[in-house]
């Protein structure tokens, strides 16, 4: 591991442009990434609200045609999963937290880090451009399943799908540049004393997620290129002999299921690319705000790594009724339920961290508690869908919609909110408004539960997802449509309340109360920079030296209820198996 301090090689940026626009500072890039992700996320939320208007009040809003409905469904899904959550966790939190938490001056490849953001921005612009091309954006559903994604009968089958695929390819280039950086920085640029088993779980979560991204995105990349070739050069990777709108086409011999396998080989790890950083961050928030060492740190690290590994062998549980060889179902149901064990360990350890704690119900802690309930709920419904014979009647219904929104939509977003309330003072030097934060919390938490809990029951009833309307179906009771109207009203309220959060973010930059350097009295390294917010180079003249893990809270005999990672060795608070012991053994 390299401890050599390279402060001299980090020239301070000279101008406004090099400091805030073409910046190579990981903290500025993090804010750039997060700002774009949040802006595009607001578009995603708006699209979902328009979509909900049609579901709740079918036919009332004439401008929501079936074509537009499917386009909004598709763009909402893709924006939220890729351009908001993936970009925010890796490009936003990964960029900001990794160097500060492991004691580095910056990412190891700052120039490539800068490129990563600008390439990401290009991918977003290409994505949004599809709203303005003939035929509009693709309406193939965010899974972009061929053949319909590139055939007439699907909105945006011409320009829309091409721009979508090109945007994804550009996004993957950006993620790869960022990801190589994060992995290398974690492995090579940790400061003295920062062993892997002393890293905060946030870094473990982001690190493992980045490794998953580097291994999983290539599958999406190749499938994107293959579909582009099918669309533009009429190759037949995914296209069998078929008849489109009464015309026999020239496609021959391709396999639509091949795309689904490639897509989900990426798509399932993608769930954990979003979830693992959330797991890590929540572990840190819960520990800080309960003033207690995270319970079972080493088990938590191994759970992250094992979940990351297993996430590559469960993909076909998205395809139980896809028409693949049904014998695969046995294997994928088993591997999927095995993944429940390390995931359950994480939940147990979070709630056991609360036990015997000194729980401060700050806004970050409220979001953390909300995450645990939401994730638990979404994780348990995953056991329905992962168990193949229970999945058969539920697949493709609103049960699935409710499940994945709980487990990988709302749950990670609650962590995003908690993390922003938690680290905002470090990033901006000011506190967010507490009352607005609490308002935002209560509306979001209660609202999302009211939206998604009853939605499971519509799925059990058999209502399929991606339906423009349910006119005239006898098996659907009118009360189910009333419930849909209720869900829509709540969704509009929750959607609007996000503006309060954005207002708080912007207002507090200028008007928020000044933050002390460590307002939550946290022990981890990022709170011990010489300045708040940290300057370029992070650490001033000398790199920090770390003597213990990040969870030395309420150590018996210590004068305060936390011991900084940088405090002298004599202050105690070692991790359960201290560094010195390990070194002695080695």
């Amino acid at each position, binding site marked *: 591991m390299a401890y050599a301090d390279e402060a001299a090689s980090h020239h301070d940026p000279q101008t406004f442009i090099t400091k805030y626009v073409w910046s190579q500072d990981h903290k500025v890039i993090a804010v750039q990434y997060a700002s774009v992700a949040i802006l595009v996320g607001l578009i995603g939320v708006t699209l979902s609200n328009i979509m909900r208007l049609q579901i709740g009040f079918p036919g009332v809003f004439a401008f929501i045609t079936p074509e537009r409905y499917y386009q909004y469904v598709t763009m909402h899904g893709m924006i939220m999963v890729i351009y908001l959550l993936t970009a925010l966790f890796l490009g936003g939190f990964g960029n900001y937290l990794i160097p500060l938490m492991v004691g580095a001056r910056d990412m190891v490849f700052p120039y490539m880090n800068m490129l990563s953001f600008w390439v990401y921005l290009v991918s977003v612009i290409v994505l949004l451009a599809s709203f303005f091309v003939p035929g509009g954006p693709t309406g193939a559903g965010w899974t972009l399943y061929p053949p319909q994604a590139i055939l007439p009968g699907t909105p945006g089958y011409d320009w829309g799908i091409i721009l979508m695929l090109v945007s994804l390819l550009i996004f993957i280039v950006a993620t790869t540049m960022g990801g190589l950086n994060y992995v290398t920085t974690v492995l090579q640029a940790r400061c003295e004393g920062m062993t892997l088993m002393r890293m905060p779980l946030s870094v473990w979560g982001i690190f493992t997620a980045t490794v998953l991204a580097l291994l999983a995105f290539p599958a999406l990349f190749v499938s994107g290129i293959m579909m582009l070739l099918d669309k533009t050069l009429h190759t037949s990777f995914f296209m069998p002999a078929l*008849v489109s709108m009464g015309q026999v086409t020239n496609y021959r011999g391709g396999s639509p299921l091949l795309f689904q396998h490639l897509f989900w080989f990426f798509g399932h790890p993608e769930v954990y690319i979003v979830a693992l950083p959330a797991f890590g961050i929540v572990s840190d928030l819960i520990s800080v705000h309960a003033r207690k060492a995270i319970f079972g740190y080493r088990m938590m690290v191994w759970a992250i790594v094992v979940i990351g590994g297993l996430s590559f062998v469960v993909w076909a549980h998205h395809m139980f*009724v896809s*028409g693949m060889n049904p014998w695969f179902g046995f294997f994928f149901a088993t591997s999927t339920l095995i993944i429940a064990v390390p995931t*359950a360990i994480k939940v147990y350890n979070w709630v056991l961290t609360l036990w015997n704690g000194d729980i401060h119900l700050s806004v970050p802690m409220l979001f953390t508690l909300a995450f645990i309930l939401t994730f638990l709920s979404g994780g348990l419904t995953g056991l329905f869908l992962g168990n193949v*014979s229970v999945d*058969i*009647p539920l697949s*493709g219904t609103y049960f699935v919609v409710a499940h994945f929104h709980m487990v990988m939509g709302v749950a990670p977003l609650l962590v995003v909110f908690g993390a922003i309330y938690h680290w905002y003072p470090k990033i901006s030097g000011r506190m967010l408004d507490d009352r607005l934060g609490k308002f935002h919390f209560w509306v979001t938490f209660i609202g999302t539960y009211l939206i998604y809990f009853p939605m499971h029951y519509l799925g059990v009833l*058999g209502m399929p997802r991606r339906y423009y309307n349910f*006119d005239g179906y006898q098996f659907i009771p009118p009360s189910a449509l009333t419930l849909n109207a209720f869900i829509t009203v709540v969704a509009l309220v929750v959607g609007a309340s996000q503006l309060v959060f954005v207002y708080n973010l912007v207002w507090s930059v200028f008007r928020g109360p000044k933050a002390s350097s460590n307002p939550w009295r946290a022990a981890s390294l990022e709170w011990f920079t010489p300045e708040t917010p940290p300057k370029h180079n992070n650490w001033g003249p000398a790199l920090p030296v770390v003597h213990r893990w990040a969870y030395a809270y309420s150590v018996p005999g210590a004068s305060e209820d936390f011991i900084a990672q940088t405090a002298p060795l004599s202050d105690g608070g070692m991790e359960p198996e201290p560094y010195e012991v390990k070194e002695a053994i080695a």
Partner: protein
Amino acid sequence: MAIAVALLLIVVGSVIFQLVSPWGLTPLASNWNRMDDTMAITLVITGIFFVVINLFVVYTLMRFRHRKGQRAAYEPENKKLERWLIGVTTVGVVALLAPGLAVYADYVHPPSDAMVLEILGQQWQWRYRFPGADGKLGATDARFVNGANPMGLDPDDPAGQNNIIVSDNEVHLPINRPVKVLLRSHDVLHDFFVPQFRARMNIVPGQVSSFWFTPTQPGRYEAMCAQLCGVGHPNMRGTVIVEDDARFQAWLKTQPTFAATRKASELDASAGPAAQGKTLAQAKGCVACHSVDGSPGAGPTWKGLFGKTESLADGSSAAVDEAFLKEEIRDPQARVVKGFAPIMPKIELSDDDVDRLVAYIKSQGSTAQR
């Protein structure tokens, strides 16, 4: 403290909702009661974990919330407790998986005496085929698809000649007899989903997928497409009638064989353009959105359409005559009838085919002609 109360209310509210909710499983009408049982087992086991963990959090929040001078305990790990929890979770997972896989083992083994039904999904309607007396289905290929042969049967395969073709969204099945369903598509993905039957599978062009079930309750069941297949997806509706064997056999006799449909289409050719237009409208999928009985759809009904004056989306109005219909078919987006979405795709048609379609629409036209 509000958060502890909120969590408690959520747990209690969720349990009450489960008990009194008017929304639950649509009553079962097939042999797959064991799928419902597995779901019930899953609900109970996951429900216990949901309630216990949340109540633990509620209690913890009340007991250990910050008070002045309070200090947390230092207990970074407890190997015994962790092992114990892993053990309990593993038992829970096995209890879910074992019954689930046992049911699935039956699902992938259709009974050998099952009758065969082929379902063809097509944007945006359903077609069905039964084997003839010899129990064989003839070969198919997308290149054989045309107006007279919408299911793409090989006209030269002798096995296909006696196959029974159902060119309608409605199919009948005998009660209490296992059915092995073979699924085909010539265009995009579909999924034949009847919630009451539980069993289903996606339909994938280029391959034949299958599932099996035994209908156990007589009645009329709605089939819906449950895999996004384009703008007409929610309009892709089918009907399954489950009835006793005698009635089923009587119904089956009224359905033509493949050979008969080919003869009929030859007759069509002599029967005149309107009859040919009807075949064409079904083959090209027009009927998914345009009804001929006046019922509402994604497009205007053809009943009484010809000769009418339609209001257009741009505020103007136009008389529906032959020229208007031809223009609409050639370029559907140019002018759109008020109240309908501009979703009709352009379909390549020969001039003769357009004439046939117009003739058919005309035949459904003004009341005088009906």
